[in-house]
C-alpha cells in the first residue's frame, strides 16, 4: 500500500482517498462477501467500512499498517450489518460464481451447498478467521493482530470453524434419521 496516499488521505485529501478506495475496494468487498454470504449485505458493509476508513483515517497512528486496520474496520461493519439487518438465515441470496470451479477444488454442487450451509452456521467471529486465513492467506499471527485477539483464540476459532465445515461436508454420509430426530 502506498503510504504516501494514506498520509495524504489522512490530511483530508479526497482524491488521495479515492485512489485508496479503488486500490482496496475490491479486496474489502471480496472479504465482506465471503463473510456475510449475501451480496446486498456485503455491499452495505463495504460501503460503511470505506466511509469509516475515511472518517477515522486521521486516528491511524501508523500509515504502514493501513491494510490490517482497514480489514478491522470492515469486520466491524460486517458485525454491524449482521446485527442491523436480521436477514441471516431466511433471506440469504447465494453469491453467484464469477468463474467455474477448478478441477482441483470443489468436487460437486453438493459440496458447495453443504459448505454454504455449514458456513452460515458459524458466527461472524469464526467466519472472519476462516476468510482472513484461507482466502487472504494471512498468517494466524496477522489474523490475530487484525482481529485484536490473542493468537491462541484465532487458532481455537479456526479449529472450531474447520471442524464445523468438515462436518458439513460429511453430512451426506450421516443417516437421514439423524436429521429426523431433531
Amino acid at each position, binding site marked *: 500500500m502506498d503510504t504516501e496516499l494514506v498520509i495524504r488521505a*489522512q490530511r483530508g485529501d479526497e482524491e488521495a482517498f479515492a485512489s485508496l478506495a479503488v486500490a482496496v475496494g475490491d479486496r*474489502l*468487498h*471480496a472479504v465482506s462477501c465471503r463473510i456475510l454470504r449475501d*451480496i446486498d449485505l456485503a455491499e452495505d458493509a463495504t460501503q460503511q467500512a470505506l466511509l469509516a476508513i475515511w472518517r477515522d483515517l486521521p*486516528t491511524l*497512528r501508523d500509515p504502514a499498517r493501513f491494510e490490517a486496520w482497514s480489514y478491522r474496520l470492515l469486520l466491524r461493519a460486517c458485525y454491524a450489518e449482521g446485527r442491523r439487518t436480521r436477514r441471516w438465515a431466511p433471506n440469504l441470496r447465494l453469491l453467484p460464481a464469477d468463474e467455474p470451479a477448478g478441477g482441483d*477444488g470443489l468436487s460437486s454442487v453438493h459440496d458447495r451447498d453443504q459448505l454454504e450451509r455449514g458456513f452460515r452456521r458459524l458466527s461472524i467471529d469464526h467466519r472472519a478467521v476462516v476468510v482472513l486465513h484461507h482466502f487472504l492467506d494471512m498468517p494466524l499471527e496477522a489474523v490475530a493482530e487484525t482481529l485484536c485477539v490473542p493468537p491462541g483464540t484465532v487458532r481455537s476459532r479456526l479449529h472450531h470453524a474447520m471442524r464445523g*465445515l468438515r462436518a458439513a*461436508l460429511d453430512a451426506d454420509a450421516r443417516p437421514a434419521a439423524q436429521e429426523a430426530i431433531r
Partner: protein
Amino acid sequence: MSTERETTRVVRAWLEEGVTALPDRVLDAVLDQLPATPQRRPWWRAWRSPYMNNPVRIAIAAAAVLVVALVGYEFLPSNTGSGGPPTTTPSAAPSPTLAAAPTSTVLPTLPGSGPIGAGKYTIFPDGLRGYVSLTMEVPAGWEGCCAAPGWIVYNGGASAWLTGAAILVGDVTGLVVYGDSCRWQSSPTSKPVGADAFAAALAAQPGRQASQPRAVTVAGLPGVHVRLTVPDDLQTTTQSDGDLTFVDCDAGEYRSFDGRHHQGLSQIDDFYFVDVGSRTLVFDIFSFPGSPASAVPELEAMLASVEID
C-alpha cells in the same frame, strides 16, 4: 470421512469462487458522501511533535517567533516584554514574553502549535465551533499542540515527551467508554450521557486506579472531577517516533474512552467534566512522574481561568 487436509483444500477452493469486484455504484456512493462526512481529527491522540527533534517544526516555530517579535516591536512599543522565545521554565507569575499576547478586546484564538505568548485566548473545542467557545488565561512557557484546538502542552525542554504535561479541552458527547482500558476492543462498552455518568463510567473501569468522582465547579458551572492513573506494570515498547506501544493491550493502546489513549505509564489524568447545554465538555489535565512540579499547578490555574461563552 474428509481428512483435515482435504477439508482445507475444498474450503479454499470454495472461497475462491464468487464476487470479487466492488460495484462502481458503491464506490461512487462512498465518494459522494465524503464532503458530508467529516474526518475525526485526532485531538485525543498522543502528542509527539512538540518534543521531537524535527528541524522543520523548529524552523517554523523560530520563524513564527521572529515574525511575532518583529510585529510586536513595530506596533506595540509599550509592551516591554522580551520579544524572544518563551522561557522553557513556566513562571508562577505569568508575564508577557511574546508580542502575541492579546492587547485588544478581540481575543486571539489559541494557536494549535508553537509557543504561546502569555495572555488570554479563545478556544473553540473540536466539533463545537459555533456552539460553544471558551476563554482561558495561559502563562508563559507553554506550547500549542497537534494542530488541534484546545491542546496546550508544557515544553519541558527535554527530548522525551514524558517530561511534559498538558491540558486539553474537548467534547465527549456520545463517546463510548470502554469497559476495560487495556482490552478496550473486546470489552463491553457504555455510552454515558452527561458529566456525572461519564465520570462514573470511567471510575468504574477495572484494573486501574480511579478516584471517586466529586463535584466541582468549572467556569462557574457544576461539574465533576475524577482522577485516573495508568498502571505502572504494563509492558510497553517505544516506537521509532518516541510514542509508546502498550504491547499487551488491544491495538497497542491503553484507552479510557473513544479515541482517548494514554501516553505513558503512571500517567495521571484529572478529568473535569461539565455539561454545557446538551453537550458534555471535558478538561483533561494530565502529567507524568517526570513532569515539572510547577506544571500541574499552572494547568490548574489555566482551568480556573476558563470562562465559557
